[in-house]
């Protein structure tokens, strides 16, 4: 039977097993919405801004092993979505975006709500398609899902002109796709793995540094097994938190600009570094020139060859999927019989413990003003480390990363690569839908939360009992911190006058609002909020305005040049 393009679009989504579609209607997608209305396999979540549709799909994807999917209209629908798409792109998150386009005959005519969607999104998608013929639609949808989820994941956009949604053809959803121009390498070269293991076992000062790739590649069990077997220290990037259990004694904390003293020192002074699913970001190693050490050997495992030797020269490159490579490494280690140099390792751990004793994350626990770190610490205790935590961008994000100890992957959801303020709340909506029986918390700041505050309305409509922890320092704290350190205390426009009353704001959206001003009220407030199982609670914590995030590696400096408390 022949179906219309709109029917085919919906059938593809359903056949792909899509549970939720995050979207916002408009002229170019009306036929698709009409088909959406007639079916009940895919549930639609009506957001209040297209940026939020993508962030929600992204949050969904980050916490379950499935891609997130959204639907937006042409023109402003797409341009609103761009920030979300770029966010997903920078963090390699599988999201499929279906966008409406003006009819094929109107393309290029400056038609109403026409933008060059493929052109605008090209630099921030893994791939995109413009479907000009309904006969290509189903196959293109299949390709989109395949590309988004395989290899190094990423967002893929499918732009569908309105006339294609009304044109008809036979519907067949392909079982699988093969693309001659795209076939990600999965298995790592076993010779290279052997070489890497050899180096690792000769190390006097080994270090294991892992990132988002462990989370994306579902390899935290394999990583944990290998790290424990070797007895080596392990650090995670901001994107990799939860990839290795944070409460394990071999865990060194996060590394990088706001990483721990011990992680950064060990990273700088190790003689063999195993990097897995991490991309030597500038926020991680600072200036590559300062990072360089003559006698340090680097092994780098990544599914994307272009991540390897991009910023840092690597001695043993291994292109492959983390899960495959790490299991092969463990297998070879078990079979090999060679053990790490016990004496050297002992001396190395002694050094590390000295660094650790510096207690770089200390803060004034007796302060009469609420310290933001304490809020996160209490949040961690009260949720027993089991919550899904989303975040926005700024100091609060760093404190969440430093003080919430993630023992499992896919529990920590934040925008690391693009650093998108406004990500936290909509991402939490997607997380909630993926895990409706879990606690979902958004740790945010008073500036960030205002960037997608309208989503409180979506949360009401779909009864999403998200807990919002607003670390309200009445400053764009991260900006203020840089101005304090590097711009002579000139706080240019990092202060917001006329903040809303967040309690009333939450209430006006139909939620519960709380304002917490004293340290002794932190715990009771959190407990009460979590006791309200079916309600969204907005907790506005009035925190110390002048608190800074430490340690800090200033831009352009090396990892051992940290500013400490």
């Amino acid at each position: 039977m022949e179906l219309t393009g709109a029917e085919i679009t919906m059938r593809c989504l359903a056949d792909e097993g899509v549970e939720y579609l995050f979207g916002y209607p408009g002229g170019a997608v009306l036929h698709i919405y009409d088909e959406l209305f007639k079916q009940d396999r895919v549930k639609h979540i009506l957001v209040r801004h297209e940026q939020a549709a993508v962030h929600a799909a992204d949050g969904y994807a980050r916490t379950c092993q499935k891609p997130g999917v959204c639907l937006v209209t042409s023109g402003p629908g797409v341009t609103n979505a761009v920030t979300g798409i770029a966010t997903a792109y920078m963090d390699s998150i599988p999201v499929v975006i279906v966008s409406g386009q003006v009819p094929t005959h109107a393309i290029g005519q400056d038609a109403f709500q026409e933008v060059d969607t493929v052109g605008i999104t090209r630099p921030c998608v893994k791939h995109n398609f413009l479907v000009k013929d309904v006969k290509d639609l189903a196959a293109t949808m299949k390709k989109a899902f395949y590309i988004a989820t395989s290899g190094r994941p990423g967002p893929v956009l499918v732009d569908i002109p309105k006339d294609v949604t009304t044109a008809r053809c036979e519907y067949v959803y392909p079982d699988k796709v093969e693309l001659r121009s795209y076939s990600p390498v999965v298995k790592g070269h076993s010779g290279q793995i052997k070489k890497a293991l050899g180096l690792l076992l000769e190390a006097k000062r080994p270090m294991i540094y892992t990132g988002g790739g462990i989370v994306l590649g579902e390899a935290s069990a394999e990583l944990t097994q290998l790290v424990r077997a070797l007895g080596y220290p392990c650090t995670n990037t901001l994107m990799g938190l939860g990839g290795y259990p944070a409460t394990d004694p071999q865990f060194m904390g996060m590394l990088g600009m706001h990483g721990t003293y011990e992680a950064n020192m060990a990273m700088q002074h190790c003689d063999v570094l195993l990097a897995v699913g991490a991309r030597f970001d500038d926020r991680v190693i600072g200036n590559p020139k300062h990072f360089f050490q003559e006698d340090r050997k680097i092994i780098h495992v990544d599914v994307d060859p272009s991540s390897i030797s991009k910023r840092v020269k690597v001695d043993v490159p291994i292109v492959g999927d983390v899960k495959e490579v790490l299991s092969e490494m463990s297998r070879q280690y078990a079979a090999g019989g060679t053990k790490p140099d016990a004496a050297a390792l002992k001396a190395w751990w002694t050094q590390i413990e000295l660094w650790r004793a510096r207690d770089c994350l200390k803060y004034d626990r007796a302060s009469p003003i609420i310290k933001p770190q304490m809020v996160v610490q209490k949040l961690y205790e009260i949720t027993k480390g089991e919550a899904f935590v989303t975040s926005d961008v700024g100091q609060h994000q760093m404190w969440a990363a430093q003080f919430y100890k993630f023992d499992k992957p896919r529990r920590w959801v934040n925008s690391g690569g693009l650093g998108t303020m406004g990500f936290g709340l909509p991402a939490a909506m997607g997380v909630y839908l993926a895990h409706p029986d879990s606690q979902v918390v958004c740790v945010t700041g008073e500036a960030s939360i205002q960037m997608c505050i309208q989503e409180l309305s979506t949360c009401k409509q779909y009864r999403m009992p998200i807990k919002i922890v607003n670390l309200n320092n009445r400053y764009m704290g991260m900006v203020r911190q840089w101005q304090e350190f590097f711009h002579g205390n000139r706080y240019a426009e990092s202060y917001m006058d006329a903040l809303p009353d967040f309690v009333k704001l939450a209430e006006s959206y139909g939620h519960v609002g709380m304002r917490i001003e004293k340290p002794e009220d932190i715990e009771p407030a959190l407990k009460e909020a979590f006791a309200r199982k079916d309600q969204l609670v907005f907790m506005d914590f009035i925190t110390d305005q002048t608190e800074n995030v430490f340690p800090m590696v200033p831009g352009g400096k090396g990892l051992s040049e940290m500013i400490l408390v």
Partner: protein
Amino acid sequence: MKHIISLLLENEAGALSRVAGLFSARGYNIESLTVAATEDATLSRMTIVTTGSDDVIEQITKQLNKLVDVVKVVDLSEGEHIERELMLVKVRAAGKDREEMKRMADIFRGRIIDVTDKTYTIELTGTGQKLDAFIEALEEGAVLETVRTGASGIGRGERILRV
């Protein structure tokens, strides 16, 4: 160093802009870029001449390979290869210069393909260097207009780039 990179890409609308966009977004140099369909209608062949350190060239080939529309990438400069570029050049050729200009064209194995009483239009094929040398060899002010295609490259001997 100068490199000649050859690629096969899907003959799809927008594939060219993905490649060109990659170079501008990542700040890579393009000295020239040529593209046309091949004997297989589903594939285009592109030749890019670029410059950069070894690290940059390595990133360029990796990034190109990563584009979903790109089927194959080879850095021709890594081995024996042939490079050819076509130039059309309109030169002043009046009076006593006329004979000299014809002689120059002959020396460089150029062909005069259009003539007026004041000008010649010369067609010249060769490596970029040879075309540069021709322009250099002409008297100042003799050149009225040049148009160059950018280099096309192919491996020597049995080196073949195909799917």
